[in-house]
């Protein structure tokens, strides 16, 4: 059993991460998911959320948006549509997006097509703010 997990995170625009890590906590679609070395092969969908990985004693947080995690032989592949590390998040922009989404949601009824779009936007913005808040830790 290897002692480290090889984490690879890719989005359609670039390869975000390729690192050796000790532990990964991913936002699985049926709940949070902790991955340690020696994990059994797994394929799961992710929801919008916060992915945390630990290297030694340092933790890193990434806001991810919809994707997959594949675990095979201590290689963890994360395929996501967007991935933003905590220190790359523009807090002001995220807050503005949150405000916009909240405004739009007030006006729309639950039947509107746009409602779900805005709801997703709201969720993303909230996650971004949450992750950005962990920057200093």
């Amino acid at each position, binding site marked *: 059993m290897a002692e480290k997990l090889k984490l690879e995170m890719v989005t359609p625009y670039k390869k975000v991460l390729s690192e050796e890590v000790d532990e990964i906590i991913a936002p699985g679609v049926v709940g949070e998911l902790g991955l340690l070395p020696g994990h059994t092969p797994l394929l*799961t969908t992710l929801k919008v959320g916060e992915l945390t990985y630990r290297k030694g004693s340092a933790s890193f947080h990434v806001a991810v948006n919809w994707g*997959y995690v594949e675990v095979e*032989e201590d290689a963890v592949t994360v395929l996501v549509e967007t991935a933003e590390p905590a220190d790359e998040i523009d807090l002001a922009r995220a807050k503005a997006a949150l405000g916009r989404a909240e405004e739009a949601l007030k006006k729309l009824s639950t039947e509107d097509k746009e409602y779900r779009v805005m709801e997703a936007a709201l969720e993303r913005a909230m996650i971004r703010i949450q992750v950005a808040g962990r920057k200093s830790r």
Partner: protein
Amino acid sequence: MANLKDIKKRIGTVKNTQQITKAMKMVSAAKLRRAQEAVVAARPYADKLAEVLSSMASREMEENHPLLEQREKKTALLLVVTADRGLCGGFNSNIAKAAEAFMRENSQGFESYKLRIVGRKGNELLKRRQGAAIDKVYENITGSISYATAALLGQEVVSDYESEQFDAVFIIYNRFHSAINQEVTTAQLLPIIPEISEEDRYVADYIYEPSCGEVLDSILPKYVEVQVFRALLESVASEHGARMSSMDSASKNAAEMINKLTLKYNRARQAAITTELMEIISGAESIK
């Protein structure tokens, strides 16, 4: 003397044209670099997704998913990727020709074809053709490709496929090799044919969350989106490459023409001077 003036004018026009073609070449070169980077950046994601799909395929493909199933071959959709603008050599016409050939040869035996075209030029070239209905045209999206645009296009194709508007989908685009080399490529988008890798990797029982079927449900449409995204990026890079090389040869031709015209101009000037001298000398002779 009128002749001299004419030649000078010609040289001026050719020089102007050369300046334009040179500028276009520079612009294309800059855009090409960016497009090329985008193609390279998108590769890991597409490769990984294909990998995940193939590793799933090698295990549990007995699951019948509508996007994997071969249907009766009635109508096929061709997704033709061209550019919005011309002046890029055979870029657009090659694609149009390939699409026409594909429909004419009909090697897979479909009853009819529908076309969805990306890019204004492709529409212009293909709308005159009879026998294929142009379903939709997407214009002005190749300027800056975002994943969201490609995803939208892909989702539309997938949902129309599911509602059985067509029974197979092919994509025709220019694959980018290098700035001077593009290759017209036809690929099948739907039904999806997963590439099952021959090398027998360590086969383990996967845990699927929430379930294998649900994971497939979300991964297959995604795969189509990514294929479309990649094709669009490749096509854009190819377009700039094609334009760059055709503008380069246009600039070279202009330079050659300027050389020829300058030679002609100098000859004419010399001839004019000689005749003038002859006139003066003969005039002086006659006074003596």
